[in-house]
């Protein structure tokens, strides 16, 4: 069921449209990750969802009922939000977490218990009496999360809450947040430009670019079946190869990419121009002398052009007669290019998952 939905929302600032959403909904008890590059309109979207920014056009519905502007305080109080910076108020850590409850008139023993429980949840209970503005970045961010979660909101809006933190702390906090949200059944909109964060927390992902919704779907849909080249790029597909459907059978579409033929299960009419999207991790590189697995489609011979050492893995660029394809090298690969050269092929999945017609009506509908 839809908790909060937007319809025909347009936000214009200084003559420039910064958000234009025909439709987007946040479902009950789901985590919707909103991803996109800087300037995509992600933060504006959150402010609109929290009724802090008034859109120039459009309708917002809370549980199916249209919300007037200004939004009633009762509805705003069912939502809480954290910003990219913790934005802690003066006073102690405890004061900060208590403030939202105080605004709602909860001042008794029960409120104190709730504050302490929230502080414990994010492991900052020992900092309760410390002045909030003296906390470290990680502590401040935990306090900001506790301050938002203590209100038991029906919808939690998080604007890149861990952007300023180091990777290990970020990963740890993300896990804590995920558990807290799931355990309480809170709906959540999580804005990030980190693809990995989105995938680790989201039930659905919405991709925004220049204020427009490019695609919304399950992580698998967005990852494996991008509806536009921009989504494919943002999902770090790695290989986006323009081609044409040259023929099709009942089960497979044959796509001509340069001199090569690729095979896909995506059903498309003959002559349709497409982008074949091949994720790096789906490519298997094999030297000519190695034992071959079971035979299959989508195998190409090529030459290694470059090898980039990424530490735990290696990235190999191969010219297979069309565009060079970066592929992850095997862990045991020697650090020189030559032994890897001369042959490569896709597998073990023989058929491409991502294939999209660049000018299909479906794509236009979703833009």
């Amino acid at each position: 069921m839809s908790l909060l939905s937007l319809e025909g929302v347009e936000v214009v600032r200084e003559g420039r449209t910064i958000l234009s959403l025909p439709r987007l909904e946040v479902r009950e008890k789901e985590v919707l990750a909103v991803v996109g590059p800087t300037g995509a309109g992600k933060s504006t979207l959150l402010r609109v969802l929290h009724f802090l920014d008034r859109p120039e056009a459009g309708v917002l519905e809370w549980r199916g009922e249209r919300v007037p502007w200004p939004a009633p305080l009762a509805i705003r109080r069912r939502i809480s939000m954290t910003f990219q910076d913790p934005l802690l108020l003066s006073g102690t850590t405890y004061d900060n977490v208590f403030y939202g409850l105080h605004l709602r008139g909860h001042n008794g023993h029960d409120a104190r218990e709730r504050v302490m429980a929230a502080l414990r949840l994010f492991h900052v209970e020992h900092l309760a009496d410390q002045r909030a503005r003296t906390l470290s970045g990680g502590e401040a961010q935990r306090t900001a999360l506790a301050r938002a979660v203590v209100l038991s909101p029906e919808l939690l809006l998080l604007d890149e809450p861990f952007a300023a933190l180091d990777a290990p702390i970020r990963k740890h906090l993300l896990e804590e947040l995920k558990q807290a949200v799931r355990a309480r059944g809170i709906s959540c909109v999580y804005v990030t430009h980190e693809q990995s964060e989105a995938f680790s927390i989201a039930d659905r992902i919405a991709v925004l670019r220049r204020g427009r919704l490019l695609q919304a779907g399950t992580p698998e849909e967005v990852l494996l079946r991008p509806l536009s080249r921009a989504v494919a790029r943002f999902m770090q597909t790695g290989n986006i190869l323009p081609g044409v459907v040259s023929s099709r059978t009942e089960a497979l579409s044959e796509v001509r990419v340069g001199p090569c033929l690729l095979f896909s299960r995506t059903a498309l009419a003959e002559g349709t121009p497409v982008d074949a999207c091949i994720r790096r991790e789906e490519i298997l590189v094999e030297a000519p002398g190695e034992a071959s697995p079971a035979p299959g489609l989508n195998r190409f011979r090529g030459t290694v052009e470059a090898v980039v050492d990424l530490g735990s893995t290696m990235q190999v660029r191969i010219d297979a007669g069309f565009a060079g394809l970066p592929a992850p090298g095997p862990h045991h690969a020697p650090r020189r290019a030559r032994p890897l050269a001369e042959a490569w092929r896709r597998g073990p999945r023989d058929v491409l998952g991502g294939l999209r017609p660049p000018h299909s009506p479906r794509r236009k509908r979703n833009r």
Partner: protein
Amino acid sequence: MTGLLSSLSELLPMPGELAGILLLSLFVSGVAILVSMLVGVPAGIFLGLHRFPGRGFLVTLVNTGMGLPPVVVGLFVFLLLARSGPLGGLDLLYTPWAMVLAQVVIATPLVVGITLAAIQGLDARLHLQILSLGASTGQLYWKLVKEARLSLVAALAAGFGSIISEVGAVMMVGGNIKGQTRVMTTAIVLQTRQGEFANAIVLGTILLALALGINWLFTWVQQRQKA
């Protein structure tokens, strides 16, 4: 120094009059700064938070008002309260309330201007964060007052300092009537005009001590909060 002491001893036999002048000064400026804060702080917060057509003009007005010549204020308040003026019927001219009104006009732009600067000095997203925690408009304004309280104490000190030491406007609208509208500054002017320089110096010293004491109190409150 001898002159000062003899002057003081001359004044001491009439402590009632001196106390009256002192209390009236404090009353007029105290009420004026209270009204200025009550009007100026919300106005400064509003200007700091909202963008609307004509805001730039209003900010320019406030900035101009911060340097308003007290004599000009006195003139306009005089014309406003004069028998033939729009508020002549209230019969306020040459009363302490006329002096309060003049001082409110002088202090309010200062309070608005310093509050505006204080609000703009806070993180622009802080008010969104406060709203996102469920604050109503009133709760938001109150929280912002608390967050910007150090600067607001400065507004209080600047506003009070400007009106307790002001003479032109209160002279014009109050008239310096003995026992009714005579305050410290107008008393100093009178003593100087009469050639009673020693008395004027004593009154000036008391006024300076008063200003110093009050500002010390404001500073103490401000620094205590900072700590």
